[in-house]
């Protein structure tokens, strides 16, 4: 696996201004890297989406919400609101590419099958060919 997992401690020490609104926080995190995945470490669908992107040669930035004791829960709530009606029991995984929301596993897979994922990744600078 070649994705980097941000440790929250180092993150906190780097950033001085931490926005309190979880949604803004999510958007800030999402815009910092080409491919950002919000995940939960025990979720197997998150594992699948990580495998998919890594298998394509992408190096996504993964935030494990269950490993953030302070803000994890509220970020999860914010993501749920962002995604609208989530028919799955868990909102994660949520994928952002180039700062823009792509969605869950179904959206990622659909865009991959219809061929729109690769151009999106290239555009965001996550893939080079």
């Amino acid at each position, binding site marked *: 696996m070649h994705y980097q997992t941000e440790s929250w401690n180092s993150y906190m020490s780097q950033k001085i201004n931490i926005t309190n609104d979880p949604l803004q926080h999510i958007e800030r995190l999402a815009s910092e890297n080409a491919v950002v995945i919000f995940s939960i470490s*025990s*979720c*197997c*669908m998150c*594992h*699948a*989406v990580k*495998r*998919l992107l890594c*298998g*394509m040669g992408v190096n996504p930035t993964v935030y494990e919400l269950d490993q953030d004791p302070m803000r994890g829960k509220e970020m999860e709530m914010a993501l749920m609101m962002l995604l609208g009606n989530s028919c*799955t*029991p868990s909102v994660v995984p949520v994928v952002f590419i180039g700062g823009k929301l792509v969605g869950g*596993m*179904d959206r990622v*897979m*659909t865009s*991959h*099958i*219809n*061929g729109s*994922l690769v151009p999106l990744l290239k555009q965001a600078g996550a893939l080079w060919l």
Partner: protein
Amino acid sequence: MQGFKAAPSPTFNLTNSDMFCQSPFYLRDNEGNRNVTSSYADLGELEQVTAGGLHQESVADLSRSSMYTSTMMKPNNVPHFTNALPFGVLTTSLGSGEMGSSATDVVDTGQFMFQEVVQVNNSTITSTMVDVGNCGVLGNGHFENWGDSYLADHSLSQRTDTSTDVDTNDKYQFCEGRHESLIVAESGGVQSKGICHDQKALRRLAQNREAARESRQRKKAYVQQLENSRIKLAQLEQELKRERHQGSFVGSGVSGDQSQHANINGASLAFDMEYARWLEEHQRLINELRTAVNSHLGDNELRVRVDGVMGHYDKVFQLKLIGTKSDVFHMLSGMWKTPAERCFMWLGGFRSSELLKILGNHLEPLTDQHLLGICNLQQSSQEAEDALSQGLEALQQSLSDTLSSNCHGSTGSGNVADYMGQMATAMGKIAMLEIFVHQGDLLRQQTIHQLCRILTTRQAAQALLVMSDYMSRLQALSSLWSARPKS
């Protein structure tokens, strides 16, 4: 005249084998008929005493039949019984309605039943009487032999008071008669032969009573079970009828709610039936497409047919979504597919990358663009399948870890909580399985749609025909294999 109705104690549990269970309840009749009547079958041994009271000889009979009890009555003949519950079940029995209407009479008038247990041992006949009341009617001097189990303490003091009443009052004839037998019993503390015979008879009768009661309870339980089964059968039949009726609306799509309300078996059966119907319709549409292709119809006509087949494919994915939600294991098992198809199954359906490989070889000469498109499609579907497979493996591993933790086999209340927690976690993982199967179906659906998008109408029509023929051959192979002559 006081009357007594005998009633059994249904909840009376005797564990001490030395205890002689008498356990009849004698209810005071409101009318005051001094009948000793048996309301319950297991008191069959109890002789019906004619109205007009108990005579001495009948009382003696009663005593021998062991179905007697004694009531303790106040001199003014209003007995007050309170339940001191030596055996703990009297009040519950009272409330249990087994006493029938007479019970309510008894309760209403504030009269109580009590039960007497006659303990037969070598030396004494002891009786436990549940009474507190204010009388101890059973005569003078006999109580000494009745031992520690006798509860009514202050009634003892009244013994002497009422003993004369006992002797003289004809209402106490019964007790008096009983006293006679007891007098016989206690004289000298040695059991005469008559009493010995009585003991055996008493014991045998009590055992018979117990056996009869047990067999009645067993019968009751059995009848109850039969009733439940009958109701369940009626329910299942109704559900089946409902599912069949629902299946006729397969075109408009069965509402997910109704499938979920049916039980698991009903849902699996419903899916199987609807899938079979879908297959028939699919075959019909494919045949129409084939005639259209062979007769070289125009592209517009062909497009209509292709879209028809595609729309019909969407219906099966809708069916599968409902089926997965109601019974994911049935979908995963692939029992709704023929055996040969099942062999190639992946995550509850066909493997789209495989299908694309087959198509690549059998379509008309494709332009480079189309070929590239199909290759890309094949690659992306392969990648998606691999990702889902790995996610599924992780899920299986996680489920296995959950179920195998704390398998120490030790007992303890803490472990029960652990077990329940484990099960709850495992249930959550099974719910995750539903999502995986759904993603698999989504992948299949997307792949087919993308295929039709990148190909021309004619090519798409051909592709659909090739796919359908391949599936049909697998199905035919299954039939041939199952019908093969076995050596």
